[in-house]
């Protein structure tokens, strides 16, 4: 009964979103206030029925209703309750339901928090979101309903969730990532609404900006969580694999980062308007492309699961319609969009433009590397794969150059800055960061290392320029605390996010240069020496989990004779599918991680294959990601965005 209610609620939600897609849009076109005013209640109704549908699926999981095919395939009665619930998005159908549910959540949020929006703008924005929802909910109902039943007879117990997914990571990573992916639909809808209405002024940029920043922050957080999850769960100690699906989430993030910056210029200076619109369209299109890559199984990837081509085709059609439609609209309307001001060579506008060019180029190179195998295959020229060295070779130099520009950008003002002022501000941070970069590899490592020099210098440059600029703000201030309060939240957000980039860059540089790793055969009593630590294997014993049995090893770690920690990596065998899972154990620290994972038993359990890692500064990677996301969220707290009524700014284009 309950699953049928879920299915039925989904159908009602589809109906409501179809009405939402049509009625307010038509109302806005014909200036009919009544029709436009239907947008809000429709958004609320759509959310309510999506919520009902989502809860029904959750209920089916929690009650072990194995007559539902999706539940039977992705759950098992032995699974702990938190994994039963997160198994909702553990497979194709459910994760699409989550996608559509989050979309309805964003739609609701826009309808609730946009009191200052003019009615026609709100109607158009919500209508565009309604169009997207119509596409996705019909996709769900036609090809991938999670509510289908096994009839008349159904399995006694479920087939269990993939053990890799029975983890805390599954609870947090997909929802965060989807919040980001789907959040770009708001920026997209604002862009389409602006193109339709021709209204593209400072106020528009301000509305669009806060939504974009939130979505961007969630996407960054989602990627960070994914990287952390892969690190501890996959058992190889890697944190980024340039896997097609990782790239699929990185591309919208890169374009989204460009969008966040370009929107700032559009809001403050009225420039780059058409470019901003284009970025908004591409950020969302790349999110859809990401969904397509994950769900269609066209690429070899850790995330790729067996899937049928019909579904991939459907998403491809959605993508084609979204991109084709919005770019056609853009082609017709964008020539009317005029940017307002002019600026000189050394100005914040130009530096933001440089940032945008770099980020876009990075996104394009990642796209190229990801889709190249598909292209070659389509041309019939053979099966290939593009390895991580390609991405590193292209990505790292561009990223490094951009970081140099980042430092300059915080020191220059809008419109124009004299070269002398910039040099006066920047020579000291430049000298300090180069000097520290030179010294660091001698101090930390065994000798000079060019990569470390560049990585550390550039990161310190980003941090020191931000700090210099911040201190400079107080030079003429009368009171420290008053000035501290006067500075807008968006300024603090910028500082935090830029420092986050530097922290991540330090982490990447050091962990990829100074990591040490050994794969070794260990019997009871054996020990191995790594990076000054001694790992002593003290044998294994059997432990029982709720739905698995594991061999748990005890490994004692000593540092020059003194005890550091005892680690317990496990090799689990899950009862239902009988598949093996490596559960690494990690001693985490701000400056280094000790990482131990079990391979397989050798000579009938007499010895084990053991993988031992020493990972310096690996936490900094994710710390930086969190700082960036916090920075993005902080900008939204800015007073400018909390005005209940928009000031009359009739700067129609």
């Amino acid at each position: 009964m309950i699953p049928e209610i879920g299915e039925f609620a989904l159908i009602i939600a589809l109906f409501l979103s179809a009405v939402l897609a049509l009625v307010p849009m038509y109302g806005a076109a014909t200036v009919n206030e009544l029709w436009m005013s239907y947008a809000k209640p429709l958004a609320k109704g759509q959310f309510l029925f999506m919520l009902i549908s989502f809860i029904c699926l959750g209920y089916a999981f929690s009650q072990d209703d194995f007559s539902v095919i999706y539940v039977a395939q992705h759950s098992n009665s032995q699974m702990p309750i938190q994994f039963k619930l997160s198994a909702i998005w553990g497979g194709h159908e459910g994760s699409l339901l989550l996608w559509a549910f989050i979309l309805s959540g964003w739609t609701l949020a826009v309808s609730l928090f946009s009191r200052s929006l003019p009615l026609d703008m709100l109607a158009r924005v919500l209508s565009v979101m309604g169009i997207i929802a119509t596409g996705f909910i019909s996709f769900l109902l036609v090809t991938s309903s999670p509510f289908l039943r096994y009839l008349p007879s159904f399995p006694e117990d479920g087939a269990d969730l993939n053990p890799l997914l029975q983890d805390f990571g599954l609870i947090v990573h997909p929802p965060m990532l989807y919040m980001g992916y789907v959040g770009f639909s708001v920026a997209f809808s604002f862009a389409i609404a602006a193109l339709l209405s021709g209204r593209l002024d400072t106020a528009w940029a301000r509305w669009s900006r806060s939504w974009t920043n939130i979505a961007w922050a969630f996407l960054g957080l989602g990627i960070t969580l994914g990287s952390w999850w892969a690190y501890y769960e996959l058992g190889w100690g890697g944190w980024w694999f340039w896997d097609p699906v990782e790239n699929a989430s990185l591309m919208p993030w890169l374009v989204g980062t460009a969008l966040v910056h370009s929107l700032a210029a559009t809001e403050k200076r009225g420039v780059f308007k058409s470019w901003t619109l284009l970025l908004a369209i591409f950020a969302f299109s790349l999110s859809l492309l990401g969904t397509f890559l994950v769900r269609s199984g066209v690429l070899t990837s850790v995330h790729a699961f067996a899937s049928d081509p019909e579904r991939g085709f459907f998403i491809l059609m959605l993508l084609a319609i979204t991109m084709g439609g919005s770019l056609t609209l853009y082609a017709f309307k964008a020539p009317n969009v005029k940017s307002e001001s002019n600026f000189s060579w050394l100005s914040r506008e130009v530096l933001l433009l440089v940032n945008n060019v770099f980020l876009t180029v990075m996104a394009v190179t990642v796209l190229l590397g990801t889709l190249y195998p598909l292209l070659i295959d389509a041309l019939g020229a053979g099966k290939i794969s593009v390895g991580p060295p390609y991405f590193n070779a292209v990505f790292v130099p561009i990223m490094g150059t951009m970081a140099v520009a980042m430092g300059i950008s915080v020191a220059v003002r809008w419109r124009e800055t004299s070269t002398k002022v910039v040099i006066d501000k920047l020579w000291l941070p430049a000298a300090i960061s180069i000097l520290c970069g030179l010294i660091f590899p001698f101090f930390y490592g065994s000798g000079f290392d060019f990569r470390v020099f560049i990585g550390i210098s550039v990161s310190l440059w980003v941090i020191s320029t931000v700090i210099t600029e911040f201190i400079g703000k107080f030079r003429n201030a009368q009171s420290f605390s008053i000035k501290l309060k006067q500075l807008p939240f968006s300024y603090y957000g910028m500082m935090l996010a830029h420092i986050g980039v530097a922290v991540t860059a330090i982490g990447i540089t050091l962990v990829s240069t100074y990591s040490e790793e050994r794969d070794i055969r260990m019997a009871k009593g054996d020990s191995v020496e790594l990076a000054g630590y001694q790992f002593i294997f003290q044998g294994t014993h059997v432990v029982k989990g709720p739905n698995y049995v594991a061999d748990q090893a005890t490994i004692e770690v000593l540092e020059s004779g003194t005890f550091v920690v005892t680690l317990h990596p496990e090799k689990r065998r899950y009862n239902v599918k009988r598949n093996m899972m490596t559960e690494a154990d990690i001693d985490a620290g701000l400056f280094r991680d000790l990482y131990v994972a079990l391979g397989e038993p050798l000579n009938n359990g007499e010895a084990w294959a053991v993988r031992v890692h020493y990972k310096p500064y690996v936490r900094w990677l994710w710390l930086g990601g969190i700082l960036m996301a916090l920075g993005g969220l902080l900008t939204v707290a800015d007073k400018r965005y909390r005005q209940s009524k928009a000031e009359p700014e009739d700067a129609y284009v």
Partner: protein
Amino acid sequence: MTPKRKKRLTIILGLVFGTALIVGLVMFSLSENINLFYSTSQIANGEAPVGTRIRAGGMVVDGSVKRSTDSLKVQFALTDYEQQVTVEFTGILPDLFREGQGIIAQGKMDANGIFQADEVLAKHDENYMPPEIAESMKKKQEAQK
């Protein structure tokens, strides 16, 4: 030249130079880092180059996995149900590596016709078959008809 034109020329030159640089970088890195996929039959027929990094895929032959007793060295055979190739690998195999399972190995062919793998990938869904393997199997079936 007027200052305005001069500015435009600088921008255009900068763009052309930058684009050329990036295209060059991308093309170079792509040419260095593309790994071609070979089926086991192609390798057995000597189509795969020796000493170049390639990808090989197929099913692990039942009963072919042999472990060394004192190191992490392991040897197994891959097949596309037509011809077999022997693979050697030192290290820890992925959890889903099993006999009868489809895997992809990356590495080089050595002079003795043994594939020296430095990476073995097995996928985390037992119904999933990497597209490369699925297609090379399909071609085989079609050829037999």
